[in-house]
C-alpha cells in the first residue's frame, strides 16, 4: 500500500454514503505520513470526534497540522465559503455581490447536489499545486451514487451553456436568438414558463444568469484542469464500499463507469467486512463449558457465523463479476468491522496498520 501511496500525487476515495469513506481517507493519510510523505487529507463534514482528532473542529477551509502525526495536514472543505471565494477570485466585486444576493445562487450553493462536488474539485486543484505536499487524499462528498461525483463538473457546466445564458442574460437578443436556434413555438414556451413560474421568478432567473455568465470562462478553465488532473497517471481512485449486496452492485457499476471514463481505479476497499472477532481467537477456558450462559453464547455465535457465511456468498459473486469486467481487475482489500468506532488518532493508526498488513497479504 505504501508503494501505491508513493506512486500518486492524488488519491480520491469515492463511494456511496455511510461506508466509512471519511475515516478511511484519514487512515490512509496517517499511513502515508508515517511512510514519510507530506500528506494533506481533504475532507467534508467529518464526524465531531474525528474532526477533533484531526484538529479540525475550529476552522473550516484551511490546512491544519494533525496533532500527533508529523507530516500530516487535514482540511475541512466548507463548500459555501469555497464557492464564494471562487466567485470572488473570478469576477469583480460588484458582480460577485450581485450574485451573492441572488436567491437562486443561494439555493445553488446550499444545495448539496452538485456544488459540493464542484468545490471539492476546485479545492483539490489548489492543493495539488501546493509544493508543501507530496500527496493529497480527497474524501468525496456523500452522493447517492458514487458516480454522481464524477458528473458534477459536467452538471454545473450545463449552467453555463451558451444557449441558457444567452437566453436569459441577453433578453434584448432574444428574438433573433430564438429564431436562430429554437424550434417553432418557442414563444409558447416562454409564455408557458412565465405562466408557470410567475414573472418574479423569471426576473430572478435572468438576474442569476446575467451574473453567473461572467464566471463562464473560469468555470470552463477549471473543468478542463479538473479533467486533466482526474485522468493523470498520478491520480488514482480508491472505491470504498460496504458489504451488502446493493452496495456491492453499486460498486460494480462505479467500476464500469470509471473504466468507461478512462480513470484509474487502483483499489477497492470493502469496509466492515467481517466483525473483528471473526479473525481473532475464541479460546475459552474449560471452566466455562458447564455454564448455561456460555452454551447460549456459543449458539449465538453460531447464528452470527452462519449469517456471515451467507454474506460471503454474495461477496464471491461480486468478485466473480469484478474479474469479468476488466482485463486488469483492481485489488480488493477487505477490512474488518472494528468493534470500536473509528474516531481517535489511535484508531486511525490501527486502521492504517491493518490496511498495510492486508494489502501485503494480497495475492
Amino acid at each position, binding site marked *: 500500500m505504501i508503494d501505491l501511496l508513493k506512486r500518486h500525487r492524488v488519491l480520491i476515495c469515492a463511494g*456511496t*454514503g*455511510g*461506508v466509512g469513506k471519511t475515516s478511511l481517507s484519514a487512515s490512509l493519510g496517517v499511513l502515508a505520513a508515517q511512510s514519510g510523505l507530506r500528506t494533506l487529507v481533504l475532507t467534508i463534514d467529518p*464526524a465531531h470526534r474525528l474532526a477533533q482528532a484531526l484538529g479540525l473542529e475550529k476552522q473550516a477551509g484551511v490546512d491544519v497540522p494533525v496533532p500527533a502525526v508529523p507530516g500530516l495536514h487535514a482540511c475541512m472543505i466548507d463548500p459555501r465559503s469555497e464557492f464564494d471565494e471562487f466567485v470572488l477570485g473570478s469576477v469583480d466585486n460588484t458582480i460577485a455581490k450581485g450574485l451573492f444576493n441572488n*436567491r*437562486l445562487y443561494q*439555493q445553488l450553493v*446550499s*444545495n*448539496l*447536489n452538485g456544488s459540493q462536488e464542484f468545490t471539492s474539485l476546485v479545492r483539490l486543484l489548489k492543493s495539488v499545486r501546493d509544493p508543501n505536499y507530496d500527496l493529497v487524499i480527497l474524501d468525496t462528498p456523500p452522493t*447517492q*451514487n458514487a458516480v454522481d461525483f464524477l458528473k458534477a463538473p459536467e452538471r454545473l457546466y450545463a*449552467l453555463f451553456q451558451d*444557449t*441558457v445564458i444567452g437566453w436569459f442574460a441577453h433578453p434584448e437578443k432574444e428574438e433573433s436568438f430564438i429564431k436562430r*436556434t*429554437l*424550434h417553432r413555438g*418557442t414563444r*409558447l*414556451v416562454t409564455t*408557458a*414558463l412565465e*405562466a*408557470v*413560474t*410567475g*414573472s*418574479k*421568478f423569471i426576473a*430572478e*432567473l435572468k438576474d442569476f444568469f446575467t451574473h453567473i455568465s461572467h464566471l463562464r470562462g473560469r468555470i470552463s478553465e477549471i473543468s478542463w484542469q479538473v479533467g486533466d488532473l482526474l485522468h493523470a497517471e498520478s491520480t488514482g481512485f480508491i472505491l470504498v464500499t460496504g458489504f*451488502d*449486496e*446493493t*452496495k456491492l452492485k453499486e460498486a460494480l457499476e462505479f467500476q464500469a463507469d470509471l473504466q468507461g471514463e478512462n480513470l484509474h481505479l487502483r483499489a477497492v476497499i470493502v469496509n466492515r467486512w467481517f466483525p473483528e*472477532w471473526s479473525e481473532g*481467537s*475464541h*479460546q*475459552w477456558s474449560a471452566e*466455562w463449558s458447564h*455454564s448455561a*450462559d456460555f452454551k*447460549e*453464547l456459543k*449458539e*449465538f*455465535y453460531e*447464528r*452470527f457465523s*452462519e*449469517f456471515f457465511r*451467507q454474506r460471503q456468498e*454474495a461477496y464471491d459473486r461480486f468478485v466473480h463479476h469484478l474479474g469479468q469486467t476488466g482485463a486488469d481487475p483492481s485489488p480488493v482489500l477487505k477490512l474488518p468491522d472494528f*468493534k470500536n*468506532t473509528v*474516531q481517535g488518532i489511535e484508531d486511525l493508526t490501527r486502521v492504517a496498520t491493518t490496511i498495510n498488513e492486508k494489502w501485503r497479504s494480497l495475492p
Partner: protein
Amino acid sequence: MIHLISGKGGVGKSTVAAALAWHLAANGRRTLLVELGDRSYFRHVFQADVGAHPVQINSHLTVTRWEGEVCLKEYLLHLIKIERVVNLFFDNKVMKALVQAAPALKELALLGKITSGVRRIGPALPYDEIVVDTYATGHFRALWRAPMGLAEAIPFGPMGEQSRAIVAAMKNPEQVRYYVVMIPEELPVTEGLELARDIQNELEQQPHLVLNRWLESPLRLEQLKAFHGHGFADYLSVLLERQNHSCKTAESRGLPFARLPWLFTNNVSERIAKLAPHMEAL
C-alpha cells in the same frame, strides 16, 4: 397520510420504508411506496420493473419511482393543460439545460407531486398512504429547503403560491409525517438527531425516530463479563454498550421512538416482511 423517510447513508432507509409500506398494506390501507431518482433499488427487492408507472405488488401495495424531471413535466401539464406546449417545452434544448441546472426546480416538482393529493391538486391518487424513501440527511434537507427558499424568494405568481402550499402541507402533522432512521452507532445517531432537530425547527413537526438493527442479545452485559477474553463475547459487550448508549441518547429527545430488530438474514425481501409487524409501534 404521507410518510417521508430519511437518515444517514447506510442505515437501511429503503428497507424501513418498504417495511412501513408493507405493514400499512397488510392492514388494509391502499399504499403507494415511492422511491426517488433515476436508479431503482426496489427493482431488486420486488423483482419488478419499477418506473413512473406504478407496479402492483399485492392487493394493497403498489410501488413506483419518481424522477424530478418527469414530475416537473407532469406539473407543467397540470398548469398549462396543453400537452403539445409541454412537449415543446421539454424538447427544447434550452429548457432541458435549464431543468438540469437550475437550482431547486426538480426538488420543487418532486415535493409538488408528493403533496399533490393532500393539496387536492390534479387527479386524486387512489391511495390512503404514501410512503416515500427519500434521500440521506443532507440531500433531504435540500429537498425541503427548496420550496421554502422559493416561497420566500417569489412573493407572487403560481410558483410562489405552489411553494407556499407545499411548505404548508409539509408542516401539517395531519398530512405529512417524518421518520429519521438510525442504527445504534455514534455517527448515524448524531447525524439522525441533527436532522430531527432541523425538522422540528424548520418544519415544526415531531419526527419519528427509528432505531434500526437493534441486536437482541440472549445474554446481558453483566452475564458477558464472565467470558472476558473471548473474542466474540468482548465484541458483543462493546456492541451492547454502544447500543444502550445510542438508545438512551435517541430516547432522551422525547420524540416518538421505535426499535427494529437486527435480523439474521441477507435476503432483503425476507427482511422487509419480518420488519413490517414491528412498524405497528409507530
